[in-house]
């Protein structure tokens, strides 16, 4: 049968989802099937009357005058203006079969009705009311419609104008049903459209924001944290500050990142047009799969991809970097330590989009012995780990770094720069009880004035922590295995950290 798979027409002889797409969806990561039910929807008997001055759109009421109008449309096409006055515009003439009356009626602005010229039944006219008035038009109150668009044209009409054409407005509206599929043996019907993933297009004017998104979706998955009618949102990278690269209308399908406030760093995908705001950078749009996103609930995930692959070589070896860069088709230059197993600590340009624009990337390597593996104590010190990741850059990069502020061959510890402001949030957690081990990385918590400072000791100590503070003023956040290798580190050096595992 003929079906559509992610907007591509496909022919298949299989009949279940799993057989067609090759894997089974789960409640965590569902897909959807879109089925069309086309209906011919007429919009409330609306007509477009084309005149020499422009189009008048009228909405009609269901009464005998409307029936007369509907059945005699050809008679009204080509009618000239008979006269205009302060309150009305009159097109005619044509014969009318109703009784003549001299009764007065109250007409409202923009009413459309039938009347008679000179109380003569053979001289019927269509009257458009410009301004409400009380008067008589020869017939009973024959109002059958109201002008909804083009009102201003009535005031511009002159004796030379006429009705050219009258057309009924008909809109073929396509209504879709969406079925969420969470298992592989869902049956597929003819003409179904199976949507399994989301594909986005990124704007090259927003390199920082795009990098943020590429980091978020590095594993090809987008998870929903919040889903509303207007947008859905992912909050995994909440707290990351980005510059405002582009303020633009958030049209349907737009991708944006919030750049200020408590929710900064969150990624939003919009389902309705929303006006632009300085607090959001719009950096791309969804080209396929928006309907799938609209059906997902919080904690559900979907596959997501873009045409751009993230080029992040930090923490890789020069050889691994070369293989990665080759896939993007741009030039690769080795600088610094260029040997195959040198660890990359810097890439230039830093951002993927900049590298693609430049069509080349330089990767600076260092001897692997300057790169240290760390093990973060995520379970017992989550707050401190969050802080540590932000100040080392490990939150958004595979390679982190620490700057040395104090190292002396006669002193048993090394101190690194922290952030006193962010350190103010460090509540005491996971502080050492009897002894601090060599290699344990500690951070001074909010109890001390030197909050935020990071330190590590070469030897065990049962009195003071790795930053020289009391045990109660220290949070142990991570552990470095080969601490001995740090002995040659001096003031103002930088050390590089790779996450272990």
């Amino acid at each position: 049968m003929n079906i559509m798979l992610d907007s591509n027409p496909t022919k298949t002889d299989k009949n279940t989802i799993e057989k067609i797409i090759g894997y089974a969806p789960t409640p965590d990561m569902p897909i959807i099937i879109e089925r069309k039910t086309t209906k011919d929807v007429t919009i409330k008997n609306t007509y477009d009357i084309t005149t020499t001055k422009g189009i008048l759109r009228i909405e009609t009421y269901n009464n005998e005058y409307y029936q007369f109008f509907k059945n005699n449309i050809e008679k009204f096409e080509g009618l000239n203006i008979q006269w205009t006055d302060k309150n009305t515009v009159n097109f005619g003439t044509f014969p009318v079969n109703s009784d003549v009356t001299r009764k007065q009626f109250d007409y409202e602005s923009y009413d459309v009705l039938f009347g008679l010229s000179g109380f003569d039944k053979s001289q019927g006219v269509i009257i458009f009311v410009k301004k409400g008035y009380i008067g008589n038009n020869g017939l009973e109150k024959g109002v059958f419609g109201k002008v909804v668009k083009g009102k201003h044209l009535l005031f511009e009409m002159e004796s030379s104008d006429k009705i050219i054409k009258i057309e009924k407005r008909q809109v073929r509206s396509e209504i879709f049903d969406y079925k969420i599929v969470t298992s592989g043996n869902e049956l597929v019907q003819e003409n179904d459209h199976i949507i399994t993933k989301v594909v986005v297009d990124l704007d090259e004017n927003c390199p920082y924001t795009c990098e943020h998104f590429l980091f978020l979706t590095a594993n090809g998955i987008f998870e929903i944290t919040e889903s509303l009618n207007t947008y859905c949102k992912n909050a995994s990278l909440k707290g990351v500050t980005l510059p405002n690269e582009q303020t633009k209308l958030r049209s349907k399908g737009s991708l944006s990142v919030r750049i200020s406030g408590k929710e900064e760093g969150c990624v939003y995908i919009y389902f309705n047009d929303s006006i632009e705001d300085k607090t959001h950078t719009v950096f791309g749009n969804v080209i396929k799969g928006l309907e799938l996103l609209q059906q997902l609930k919080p904690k559900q995930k979907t596959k997501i991809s873009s045409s751009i692959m993230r080029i992040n070589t930090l923490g890789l070896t020069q050889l691994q970097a070369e293989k990665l860069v080759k896939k993007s088709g741009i030039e690769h230059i080795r600088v610094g330590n260029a040997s195959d197993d040198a660890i990359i600590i810097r890439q230039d340009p830093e951002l993927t989009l900049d590298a693609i624009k430049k069509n080349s990337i330089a990767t600076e390597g260092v001897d692997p012995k300057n790169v240290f593996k760390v093990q973060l104590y995520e379970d017992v010190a989550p707050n401190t780990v969050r802080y540590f990741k932000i100040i080392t850059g490990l939150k958004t990069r595979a390679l982190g770094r620490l700057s040395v502020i104090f190292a002396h061959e006669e002193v048993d510890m090394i101190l690194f720069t922290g952030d006193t402001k962010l350190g103010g949030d460090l509540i005491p957690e996971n502080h050492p009880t009897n002894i601090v081990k060599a290699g344990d990385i500690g951070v001074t918590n909010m109890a001390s004035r030197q909050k935020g400072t990071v330190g590590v000791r070469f030897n065990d100590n049962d009195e003071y922590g790795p930053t020289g503070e009391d045990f109660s003023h220290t949070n142990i956040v991570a552990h470095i295995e080969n601490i001995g290798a740090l002995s040659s580190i001096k003031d103002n050096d930088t050390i590089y950290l790779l996450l272990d595992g």
Partner: protein
Amino acid sequence: MFKMYVFKGGTYRHDEIIEKIEDLGGIVMQKTPMQTEIDITFALQAPDLDNLKELAKKLKGDILEIPFGDMEIAIVSPSLSRHHLPHPVCDISEFLRRYGATTNIVGLARGYGKTIFQIKDIEKKMIEEHDAAIFSYGLFSDCIVLKEKETKEISTSYIICGGPSKMPFDNYIGNIGRKGGRMRSAAEIATLEELKEMLLEKIEKTRESIEKDPPPYAPVYIKRALEEQLGIKGTLGDNPVVLHLNGLRIKLPYNIYYNKICDVKIGNVTLGDLSRINKSYMNDTILVRLLSESELGGE
């Protein structure tokens, strides 16, 4: 279509409400902090109002609709003398302001008497600049019937208030005739509520007809652009940009500001391309009337 709301709650964590409004594509109009409480007036398009209300409830606050928040209403008094002011004209004005309206009291030069009553042409034009008008006439039905004949000429939506409880025409609210004191009894407040309901009905009709042929950008959006580009937000004194249902009034001198306002950027065009900008008949203010899609030559 944008509707106006107000958040009333504590200042603690009110920034979360503001962030949510920005995320939903709304516009924060005004923040009024009062010690530990804050009122945030904002405009929002409907779809996720419930979600915002839930957040407000979590923060022990409340979100109320202010149906007249984007309108200017004229309360027309037959004269500015003791017979008609302050009661009931000021009572009506104050009551409607609680629902967000910007009100102006227009005192007619010859609005009193029976045989000498008239509304001058310029007064008529002033009243028609507003989105709605409330006429406060007196106690005697004979007089009100005469005055109504002339009031009918006004093209903007209007409601007539008077003493007798019923009159032979629509748009009428009774039991608000001449009052000796403030309207504060339960019955009087109920009458004011009735007035508000009738006004709401009329305004809904006007809003629907605008919705069928709307301007490409909502007045609230234009207001934000004006305030940002002309740097007039946050000035002391009254709100310099007042919203109308399909336009704005800018309380700045016409001769000095006309060109600057024409040049304000909206999307890819300027405000001068999207609207008719005229000098108002009231004081030295500028009236901006946004053109609808069909007037701009659209579909």
